[in-house]
């Protein structure tokens, strides 16, 4: 068993003069979900496609299950791939698609059983063109599992899906993780990475700008907790009189806090001054804030 099924060292990919991937390195451990985050054009899909053997690299070293994906065709028997915006032969059904893959991979599986694992068994005989976006992604996920892969590459598996479909797919990924499969997940959704990933690499302009567990990244880059108070102009005047610095956004006065007790103190003083306010909340910076901070730097 390979304890580090994916190893990437100093990977470089150029398109003409444009450097899409600029010397990135990371490793994925067995049974780990590793998420590549980054804005559009950061180099995530290029990186994933190099790992899948679908693109050639210009420099660096890549190993997937001990094989070089650029050279070894054998790799496709051991990895599962869900590409971005998965599509298939339009008039084929999920059942037929699974039967096709089973024949090519030489596997004997019950298509309905496999479709059950992605909650698609009731759409087994519906043409691909008539499936919803979420159902298409679920089929892609089912196809990526036919060869019982040790490593899965899921490129934006929930992009464009409604919240319910997204949560369905998250549940499936959670189940795959429990089966000790290693998963490389690219995503736009920080919430997705925060929920599913053991490790996250934030990419920007072809480089990894930070890497670590979601908690580590938050702790590393977190700023002050923020107190949001909703109120009118008297509240603004009162805060000025108290010498407290604030920002005004969407009807909320936003104040930086040194600790949680400070929030109670401020609210108490405003109340004592007889200034009315409608609502308040304390917000802690999440991975999305960290992501925006890191990629804007």
């Amino acid at each position, binding site marked *: 068993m390979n304890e580090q099924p994916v190893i990437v060292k100093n990977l470089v990919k150029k398109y003409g003069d444009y450097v899409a991937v600029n010397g990135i390195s990371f490793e994925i451990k067995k049974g780990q979900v590793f998420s590549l985050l980054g804005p559009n054009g950061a180099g995530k899909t290029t990186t994933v496609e190099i790992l*899948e053997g*679908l*693109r050639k690299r210009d420099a660096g070293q890549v190993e997937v299950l001990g094989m070089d994906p650029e050279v070894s*065709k054998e790799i*496709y*028997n051991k990895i599962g*791939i869900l*590409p971005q*915006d998965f*599509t*298939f*032969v*339009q*008039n*084929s*059904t999920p059942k*037929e*698609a699974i*039967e*096709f*893959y089973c*024949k*090519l*991979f030489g596997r004997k599986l019950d298509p309905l059983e496999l479709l059950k694992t992605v909650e698609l068994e009731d759409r087994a005989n519906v*043409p691909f063109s008539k499936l919803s976006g979420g159902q298409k992604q679920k089929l892609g996920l089912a*196809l990526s599992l036919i060869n019982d892969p040790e490593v899965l590459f899921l490129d934006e598996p929930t992009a464009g899906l409604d919240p319910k479909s997204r949560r369905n797919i998250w549940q499936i990924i959670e189940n795959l993780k429990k089966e000790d499969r290693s998963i490389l997940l690219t995503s736009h959704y920080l919430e997705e990475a925060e929920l599913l990933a053991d490790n996250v690499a934030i990419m920007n302009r072809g480089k990894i700008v930070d890497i670590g567990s979601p908690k580590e990244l938050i702790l590393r880059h977190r700023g002050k907790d923020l107190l949001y108070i909703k109120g009118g102009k008297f509240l603004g005047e009162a805060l000025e009189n108290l010498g407290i610095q604030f920002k005004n956004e969407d009807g909320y006065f936003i104040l930086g806090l040194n600790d949680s007790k400070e929030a109670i103190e401020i609210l108490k003083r405003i109340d004592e001054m007889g200034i009315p306010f409608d609502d308040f909340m304390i917000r802690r910076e999440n991975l999305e804030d960290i992501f925006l901070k890191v990629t804007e730097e």
Partner: protein
Amino acid sequence: MKLKNIAAYFVLHAKAYIRTRSGVFFQILFPVILIIMFGFLFGSSSVTPQNLIIVNHDNGQFSTQFITALSETGTFKIKVENISNIRQFLDQNPNYMIMVIPSNFTANILNKSKVTIQVYSNSNPQVSSEYAGIINTVFQAYINSFNGKGLSSSLQVYDYSGVSSRTINYYIPGLIGFTIISSMFSMLYQVPNYRREKIFRQFKIAGLSKSEWIIGSSLFNLTFNLIADALIIIIAYILFGAVLYYNPLNVLMMLIIIVSGNLMFIALGALAGMVSDNEETVSIVGNLILFPMMFLSGVFFPLQFAPGYVKIISDFLPLTYFINALNYVLIYNNIEGSLYMIAILAVSSIALFALSSKLLKFES
């Protein structure tokens, strides 16, 4: 190349394709509708007998036999006359054709020397070329009957009944060619579509090779084409009395021609699809290939009287060999004459298949 992979793609594509009713219509029913249409327009009639004046300078026994054989086809109203100024006569009588038999006709047959006849016409080239084709077929068959048999068997009765004058016969190879061209179009659309939708990438991931995909597509189209072609022949035979050669050898040769032609046009479609990166260019590229072939390959218009340069161009078009080979096998019963065309078809189809397998890219 794995047969199980080819079979897997065949099954997947066939099931998906059958759901597209318009696809099935164009692949099978459209050619059938065409043969019914041509049949009703031309099928119940024979070619109108053509006035043919034979200027016989030979007057030997073989020229007389040949004239009799030509007469037995029922295609010509024959008069044997001596005409001094052919050009002037045809200018005054455009509905006539003139065939000149040289004085050495019989002597050359006896000496096994080259025998030539001349045919003159001043009418519509499409019409006259059809008649000239019939004269040529009878003439070739007559001359061929001497080869290898010696003069001792020269008194045998020649059977020319197979050279039917029914017009519907001549549309059948063209319509079979039409079904084959439809296969090319399906590939022409499929290649850019599968590339854009990244379905090729799915095939690569699943382990289907490029050559397996092309062969699988070819087999799939071949199945549908054979159904369409069988329907064309059955309808032409039952409804319109088409006269074709159905001997086992002729059928076998016809199958070889269709299989080779099918693979060749599938490969050609795949190559053309590679240069069509969007739906707009697909129709332009398709028409660029289709129209020259339709008009210059003798699909519906005989090429015997076409200008020399057209014949040169048509010699480079694969469909020419496909149509001519079918004509030779199904209508003229000239298997030997069709062999070099079938060889060219087979070699071209293998070369185009190899080229398309090499150049096609499954990656985006």
